[in-house]
């Protein structure tokens, strides 16, 4: 029997990267590269940088090749050539901040982006995702204080005028899993998980034959997918991103970079989204393969998202039709058979996954205390009824946006939470701790400890390694992805006992450090 430890949610590293929307009084889209950078630079706590981009190559494709260039939005390219920050270097524009809680805060194409530290449990990921909302909001508050201009931050994925920005998830996956198994195993699942992971949106933003009347749809992002699989993320977005950046030892791991998800405010939706995805990956790692494929996944996610009947029927490649909830139940059924009892998070996901699917089929409003799209839709329906307006009223778009405002005094999601109407997963103490403390059982604990104690000696930082300066030399120290998976490993304790940079290097490398760090061009 395979060791159950390797099948449970806790055996996998995962994280969430959220690009926030930003609205600054008196400023337009062309100014957002600068505004986002200045917002990140307002971060008041200790941090380290710059980021080590030599360890990354977003043009490398899982299928074994590297593309010449990534597609880019033409209008954004013009902003970058002519905008206020065009004289700055890429490093200056990005303003990378590696934080003491192990997270990364930076300016990504004009959006403040918060990438959680690596997590192993659902409570950790929920607490750190929520900590990110608070950190970005605090930066906005400080910018308002400094400039006198109002700054609003939205955790959503669309400006409702045709521009989208992402909330990506990263899952470490065994390198031994063939690309085709990942692709065909994940696609039907990713398309249909918007049933519970969608954040909801008023209207449709893209033209085409599917642009039927749609007052409200399940997903923020569904409108923006044009390909089944590709390495691109900024234009011609794929459902399945083939970027091959493990952020770990690529001989042993891939990182599945999920770009087709929505940013969730609901803690429950965040936990269920990450939990179900991790379990499906465990199925695929075990050799499981689905016996079905969607006929046209790109069209399917749009139809599913916009279906006004809530019957959610999809076409399969073999000509059959199947409800999306039933397709999800196939994944659920096999996960129950193969993974039940692996750990507490796994059992929570299996139980809540089934309950959500049952509720969605019986009466979707039963899920309004857990799912963002349902909570938002119900809010808007309440307003429509109260004010005697129609779905076409443009005020609803502003309310849609306000659902995602991360200001706890203004945001409509937070109003629901304040009223006790949303299920909570992480407690206030866990969220407050996540502002400054990394998950103790992941390599983020090593990164966070180094940043907390040796910031002046850090010359570069990334997910998988940190460059530490000892005397005149900078040396890499690795942050192993396996750290924390085995409780017997006590590297963190040893690191905490290191009093000097030299001792920290010795603890993390076993000797005097890896090769010298060359200058970053």
């Amino acid at each position, binding site marked *: *029997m*395979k060791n159950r430890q390797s*099948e449970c949610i806790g055996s996998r590293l995962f994280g969430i990267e959220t*690009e926030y*929307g930003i*609205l600054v009084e008196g400023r*337009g*889209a062309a100014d*957002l590269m600068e505004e986002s950078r200045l917002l990140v630079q307002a971060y008041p706590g200790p941090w380290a940088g710059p980021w080590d981009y030599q360890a990354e190559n977003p043009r490398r494709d899982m299928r074994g090749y590297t593309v010449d260039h990534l597609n880019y*939005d033409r*209008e*954004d390219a013009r*902003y970058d050539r002519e905008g206020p920050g065009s004289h700055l270097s890429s490093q200056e524009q990005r303003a990378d901040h590696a934080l003491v809680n192990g997270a990364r805060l930076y300016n*990504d*194409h*004009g959006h403040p982006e918060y990438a959680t530290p690596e997590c192993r449990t659902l409570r950790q990921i929920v607490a750190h995702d929520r900590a990110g909302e608070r950190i970005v909001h605090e930066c906005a508050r400080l910018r308002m204080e400094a400039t006198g201009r109002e700054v609003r931050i939205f955790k959503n994925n669309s*400006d*409702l005028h045709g*521009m*989208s*920005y*992402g909330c990506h998830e990263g899952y470490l996956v065994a390198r031994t899993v063939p690309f085709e198994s990942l692709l065909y195993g994940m696609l039907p699942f990713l398309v249909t998980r918007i049933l519970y992971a969608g954040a909801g949106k008023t209207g449709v933003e893209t033209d085409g034959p599917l642009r039927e009347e749609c007052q409200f749809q399940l997903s923020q992002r569904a409108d923006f997918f044009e390909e089944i699989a590709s390495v691109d993320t*900024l234009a011609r977005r794929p459902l399945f991103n083939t970027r091959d950046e493990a952020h770990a030892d690529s001989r042993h791991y891939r990182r599945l970079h999920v770009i087709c998800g929505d940013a969730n405010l609901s803690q429950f939706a965040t936990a269920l989204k990450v939990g179900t995805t991790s379990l499906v990956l465990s199925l695929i790692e*075990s*050799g*499981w*393969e689905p*016996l*079905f494929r969607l006929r046209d996944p790109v069209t399917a996610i749009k139809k599913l998202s916009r279906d006004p*009947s809530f*019957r959610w029927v999809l076409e399969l490649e073999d000509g*059959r039709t199947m*409800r999306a909830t*039933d*397709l999800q*139940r*196939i994944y659920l*059924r096999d996960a129950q058979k*193969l993974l039940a009892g692996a750990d507490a998070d796994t059992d929570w996901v299996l139980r809540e996954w089934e309950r959500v699917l049952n509720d969605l*089929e019986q*009466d*979707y*409003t*039963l899920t309004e205390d857990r799912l963002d799209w349902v909570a938002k839709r*119900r*809010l808007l329906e*309440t*307003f429509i009824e*109260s004010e005697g307006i129609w779905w076409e009223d*443009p005020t609803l*778009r*502003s*309310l*849609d*946006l*306000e659902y995602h405002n991360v200001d706890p005094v*203004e945001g*409509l999601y937070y109003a629901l939470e304040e*009223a006790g*109407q949303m299920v909570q997963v992480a407690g206030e103490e866990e969220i407050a701790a996540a502002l400054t403390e990394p998950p103790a059982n992941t390599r983020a604990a090593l990164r966070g400890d180094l940043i907390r104690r040796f910031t002046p000696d850090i010359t570069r930082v990334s997910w998988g390694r940190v460059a530490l300066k000892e005397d005149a030399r900078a040396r890499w120290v690795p942050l192993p992805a396996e750290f924390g998976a085995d409780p017997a490993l006590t590297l963190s304790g040893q690191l905490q006992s290191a009093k000097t940079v030299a001792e920290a290097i010795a603890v993390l490398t076993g000797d005097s450090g890896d090769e010298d760090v060359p200058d970053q061009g």
Partner: protein
Amino acid sequence: MFPIKGEERIQRPVPQDPITRPGSDDGPKAPNVKRPDPSDLLKRMRRVDPDQAKRYRQRSGE
């Protein structure tokens, strides 16, 4: 062993019908959730600038 062998996969029957429960064929029924007093939420929603979305323009992100 945990992995499903290829042969088992091939022999495993493909469901001819979706896994549905009796009476679930027509989609969700009419809402039946008791809702709390919405007056506070409505007050907050009425405070929202109705033109906010018109001004909200972003760069394309990832």
